[in-house]
C-alpha cells in the first residue's frame, strides 16, 4: 500500500529535481507546489491555503515571484516576476488554454476552482518549458485526480461564509474506486455581493456568482495502462469589474481531455503518455449595470483551443533522466463589439477578427546527476507557429491599417535552459540558471483591432509584423537547508530583446469614446528586468513560520521603468500547531511604489500592511471535520496594491467561517 502511494506520488512529481528528500517537502524557490485538501501535514499548507474560502488566484499569489493584477474582485491576472499574460505560459495539466476576453478580464486561472486543483507548479526551471514557451516562466495548474488508495466511496463537503461581501460558498467532491474505474466528481458554488473597503464604504461592481463542476475518471484495470478522462465546466455570471468600464454578464468554460498512460517497470522508458484535449470559452462583457456610459456596447468573445501532446519519460540511466515531449494545438479567437447610439444604426466590428493560430513544438530535457555534488539540468524546446485571419472579411479589418495580411504568418522560437546545481555540503546548495527564452506575440499583439486598455485609456492596434520577444536570463540562488529550517535567496537578471509594448501613433484617431488616442504594438530595442525572491521557512512540530519577500525592477531602452512591476512585498505567516488545532497570524505588506511608467497610465501607490488571523480546528474520527474561522485585515486598513487597476481599494475587515466534512 505504501509502495503504491509512493509510486503514484512519484509519477505525479516526476518533474521534481533529483536528490529530493521525501520525508520533508523542501522549498525549492524555482518550483513551488500547492497541495490541496489531502495533505494537511504539509507545513506549507497553512501558508498557501490558510483560508479554504480563497480563490485559486489567492493561493497562487502566495507563490514567490507571483503577484496579481486586479481589475476588480474577480479573475485577477497572474504576474510572474513582472511578466504578465502573453509572457507567462499559463496551462492546465499542460493543456494550452486562452481567455476569451480582449481586455484580459478572464485569465484562465479564473476558470479553475480550488476544488479542481491538486497542485500549482510555477517557476522557470528546466522542465517548465515542457508545457510551452514562457518567457517569464510557467504556471501549470494541475487538476486533482481520483485518490486511488481510498476504498469505496469518499468525499468531502465544505461550506463557508464571509462577512465582507455577504459571501457564501459551498464545495463538494465525491470519489469512488472500484476494480475497473475510479472517479471523482466535484462541484463548487460561490456567491458574493459587493464588498466593503477599509473605510467602511461599499465598493460597487465587486460582486460575482459562479458555479463549477468537474468529473474525472481513471481506469483501474491495469497498473501498466491507464486511461483518463477529465472534464471541467465553469460558469460565472453577474461579475463586476470595479476598475473597468464594463462588467461581465457571463463567462463560461468547458475544458476536457482524454489521456492514455503507459507505464513500464523494467525498461529504459519509465512512462509514455498521450493526451488529446479541447477547451471552449465564451465571455460576454456587459455595461447594462453601469448608469453613465457614453455608448452602450455588447462585447462577446470566443476562445477555442484543441490540441494533443505526447510525453516520453526515460528511467534514469548513468545519472541522466531524459524526457521528451511533442505538442501541438490550434487556437481560434473571435471577439465582437456592437455599439448602440440613440440616434444611429448599430455599429458592429470585430476586435479579434476571426484569428486562427496553430503551434507545434518539440521539447527535450535531461536532469543529469553528474555526481553526488553536482547536477546539470538542461532542456531545449522548439516551437513553430502559423497564425492567420480566417476569411477575407477579417483580413479587411487589418488592411485598413495598410497591413498585408493575405498570407499567414509563420514564426519559430527556441527556448534553451541550462541549470547547474552545486551541493556545496549537506546544508548549502548553489544553483545557477542560464537561459534563452522566446515567446510568440499574443493574438492581440498580432491582430488586435482597437482594443481599449482602461489603464492608460488608449486603443491598441495589433501589428502582424511583430517579432517574437526574446530574453537572455541569468539567475543564481543560494539555499541553506536543514530538516526544519530553510533559507533561500534567488537573484535574477533578464535582458529582453524585441520587447513588445504599445507605442502612440499620433496619426491615428481613437475609436473608443473617452480614449486618449491609439497605440500600435511595436518592438522596443531592448529592456532589462532584475530582482530577487527570498524566503525563510521554519517548520517544527509545534509551529512553523513562512516568510517570502519578492522584488522586481526593470527599464526599457527609453530608460522608462517597465509596466506592471510590483514593489517589494513581504508575506510572513506564523502557525502555532497542536494536535487538533492550529492558529496562524500573518502579515502581508508592500512598500510604496513611486517610480511608475507614466506612458502606461500607472499611478504611484502608498505602502500598506495588513494583518490576518486564521484558526482551524480538526475533529478526526471515522469522518473528518475541519472548522475554520479567521479575520482578514484585522485592523480594517484602507489599502490597495500597486497592481490594482483604478486604485480600487481592497477588502476591509472580513470575518469568515468554513466547515469541511470529509468521509
Amino acid at each position, binding site marked *: 500500500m505504501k509502495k503504491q502511494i509512493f509510486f503514484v506520488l512519484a509519477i505525479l512529481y516526476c518533474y521534481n529535481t533529483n536528490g529530493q528528500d521525501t520525508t520533508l517537502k523542501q522549498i525549492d524557490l524555482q518550483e513551488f507546489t500547492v497541495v490541496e485538501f489531502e495533505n494537511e501535514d504539509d507545513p506549507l499548507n497553512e501558508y498557501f491555503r490558510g483560508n479554504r474560502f480563497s480563490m485559486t488566484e489567492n493561493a497562487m499569489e502566495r507563490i514567490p515571484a507571483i503577484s496579481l493584477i486586479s481589475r476588480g474582485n474577480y479573475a485577477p491576472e497572474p504576474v510572474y516576476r513582472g511578466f504578465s499574460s502573453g509572457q507567462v505560459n499559463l496551462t492546465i495539466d499542460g493543456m494550452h488554454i486562452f481567455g476569451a476576453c480582449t481586455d484580459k478580464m478572464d485569465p484562465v486561472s479564473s476558470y479553475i476552482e480550488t476544488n479542481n486543483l491538486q497542485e500549482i507548479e510555477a517557476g522557470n526551471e528546466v522542465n517548465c518549458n515542457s508545457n510551452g514557451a514562457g518567457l517569464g516562466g510557467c504556471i501549470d495548474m494541475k487538476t486533482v485526480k481520483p485518490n486511488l488508495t481510498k476504498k469505496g466511496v469518499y468525499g468531502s463537503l465544505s461550506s463557508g461564509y464571509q462577512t465582507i461581501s455577504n459571501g457564501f460558498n459551498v464545495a463538494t467532491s465525491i470519489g469512488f474506486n472500484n476494480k475497473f474505474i475510479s472517479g471523482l466528481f466535484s462541484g463548487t458554488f460561490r456567491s458574493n455581493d459587493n464588498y466593503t473597503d477599509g473605510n467602511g464604504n461599499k465598493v460597487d461592481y465587486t460582486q460575482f456568482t459562479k458555479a463549477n463542476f468537474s468529473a474525472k475518471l481513471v481506469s483501474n484495470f491495469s497498473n501498466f495502462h491507464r486511461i483518463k478522462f477529465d472534464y471541467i465546466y465553469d460558469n460565472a455570471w453577474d461579475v463586476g469589474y470595479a476598475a473597468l468600464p464594463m462588467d461581465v454578464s457571463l463567462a463560461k468554460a468547458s475544458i476536457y481531455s482524454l489521456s492514455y498512460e503507459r507505464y513500464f517497470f523494467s*525498461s*529504459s*522508458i519509465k512512462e*509514455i503518455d*498521450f493526451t488529446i484535449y479541447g477547451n471552449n470559452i465564451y465571455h460576454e462583457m456587459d455595461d447594462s449595470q453601469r448608469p453613465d456610459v457614453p*455608448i452602450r456596447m455588447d462585447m462577446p468573445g470566443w476562445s477555442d483551443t484543441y490540441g*494533443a*501532446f*505526447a510525453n*516520453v519519460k526515460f*528511467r*534514469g*540511466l548513468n545519472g541522466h533522466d531524459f524526457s*521528451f*515531449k*511533442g*505538442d*501541438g494545438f*490550434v487556437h481560434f479567437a473571435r471577439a465582437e*463589439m456592437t*455599439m448602440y*447610439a440613440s*440616434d*444611429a*444604426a*448599430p*455599429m*458592429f*466590428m*470585430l476586435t479579434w477578427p476571426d484569428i*486562427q493560430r*496553430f503551434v*507545434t513544438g*518539440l521539447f527535450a530535457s535531461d536532469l543529469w546527476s553528474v555526481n553526488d555534488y553536482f547536477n546539470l539540468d538542461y532542456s531545449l524546446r522548439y516551437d*513553430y507557429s*502559423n497564425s*492567420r485571419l*480566417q*476569411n*477575407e*472579411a477579417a*483580413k*479587411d*479589418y487589418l*488592411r*485598413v*491599417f*495598410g497591413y498585408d495580411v493575405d498570407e*499567414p504568418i509563420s514564426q519559430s522560437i527556441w527556448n534553451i535552459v541550462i541549470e547547474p546545481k552545486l551541493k556545496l555540503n549537506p546544508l548549502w546548495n548553489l544553483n545557477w540558471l542560464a537561459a534563452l527564452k522566446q515567446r510568440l506575440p499574443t493574438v492581440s499583439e498580432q491582430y488586435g*483591432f*482597437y482594443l481599449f486598455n482602461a489603464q492608460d485609456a488608449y486603443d491598441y492596434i495589433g501589428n502582424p509584423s511583430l517579432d517574437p520577444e526574446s530574453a537572455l536570463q541569468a539567475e543564481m540562488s543560494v539555499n541553506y537547508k536543514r530538516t526544519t529550517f530553510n533559507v533561500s535567496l534567488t537573484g535574477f537578471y533578464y535582458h529582453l530583446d524585441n520587447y513588445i509594448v504599445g507605442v502612440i501613433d499620433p*496619426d*491615428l*484617431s*481613437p*475609436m473608443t*469614446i473617452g480614449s486618449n488616442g491609439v497605440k500600435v504594438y511595436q518592438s522596443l530595442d531592448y529592456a532589462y528586468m532584475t530582482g530577487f525572491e527570498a524566503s525563510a521557512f521554519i517548520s517544527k512540530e509545534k509551529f512553523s513560520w513562512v516568510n517570502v519577500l519578492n522584488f522586481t525592477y526593470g527599464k526599457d531602452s527609453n530608460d522608462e521603468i517597465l509596466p506592471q512591476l510590483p514593489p517589494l512585498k513581504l508575506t510572513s505567516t506564523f502557525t502555532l500547531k497542536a494536535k487538533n488545532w492550529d492558529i496562524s497570524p500573518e502579515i502581508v505588506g508592500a512598500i510604496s511604489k513611486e517610480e511608475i511608467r507614466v506612458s502606461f497610465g500607472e499611478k504611484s501607490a502608498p505602502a500598506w500592511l495588513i494583518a490576518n488571523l486564521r484558526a482551524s480546528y480538526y475533529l478526526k474520527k471515522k469522518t473528518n471535520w475541519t472548522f475554520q474561522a479567521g479575520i482578514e485585515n484585522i485592523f480594517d486598513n484602507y489599502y490597495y496594491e500597486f497592481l490594482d487597476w483604478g486604485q480600487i481599494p481592497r477588502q476591509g475587515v472580513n470575518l469568515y467561517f468554513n466547515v469541511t466534512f470529509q468521509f
Partner: protein
Amino acid sequence: MVINCSSDIKNSMINIQKKMKKKYLFILSTIVLLGFANCNKDNNEPEPEPIAPVQILVSEEYAIGTGLKISYYSDEDPFVGYNKIYFTVKDSITGETISNDLEITILPMMDMGTTQHSCPTEAVVHNSETNQYETAIVYVMPSNPGTWTLTATVINNSNGDSGVALFNFDVVQPDEAKLTSFVSNLDPTASYFISLIQPTDPKVGENEFEILINRRASMMSWPYEPYLTVEIDPQMPAMNHGSPNNVNPVHIGNGHYKGVANFTMTGWWRINMLIKDGEGSVLTDDVYLDITFQ
C-alpha cells in the same frame, strides 16, 4: 541508480533501448508532422463570385420614326442621385436587338409647371459585350411636385432613320441621400452637385469611394467639373471618430473623382468633404455624404 551487468547483456539492453527510443520518437515525430500537414491545408474560404445586379425595367417606349423599341433599364428604380442607365434597343417588328450603328442622345427634363430644367448626363456609349447602350443621369430632385421625362433621340446610321422616344417615370428620394450640393464660397451664383457612385455595397475595410461633381451652368447645362481637389474625412457622427489611411479622391476623367474610404465598423458613416479649386481656394468645407450599412 547503478546497473551491474555483463557487457553482452548491456549491449543487447542498449539495442533494445535504441529500438524503443526510436519507436517512441517516431510517434512523437508523427504528431509533429501531423501538425505540419495541417498548416499546409488551405483553409481559406473561396472568394464569393461577384453577382451582376439584375437590371430593372423602368420604362419602354418606341422611338417614333425609327421602328425601334427602346427599353430603359437601371440597377434600381430612378432615384435622386447618380443613376446608371442601360438602353436595350430592339426592332419593333422582328424583336431583334440592334447592336450598333445607332447614335443616341438623351435629354432629361423636370417640369415644375412654372419652370423646366434638366440635370447632369453622361455620353451614351455602346457596350458590345451586353449589347446595350449605357449612360448615366444625375436626377437632382424627386418627382412630386413636378414630373420627370427623358427624351432619347435615336439616329439609325444604317438606314438614316431618326426618331424620339419619350419616357415617363418617377424619381424617388432614397432614405439616405446619394446627392448633395453646395454653393461656392467664392461665387454665390455657382452651384455644384456631388453624387455618390461608389461604394454601392459598403463593407468593413477598404472601400472604393467614387463621386461625380457637376456644376449648374444654366437650367439646361450641367457640365462636369474636372479641376477640383477633394479631401475626404470619414467620421462616425454617433461616436465622433474617424478612420485611418483614407485616400483622397483624384479626378479620373469626366468629372469622376476616385479614392479610398476605410470603414472600421458597420453603422452610420459621414464622409465629410473639403472641396478646393485649381488654385487651392476653398469652395466649401461643409459638404458630406452619409453611408450607413450593416
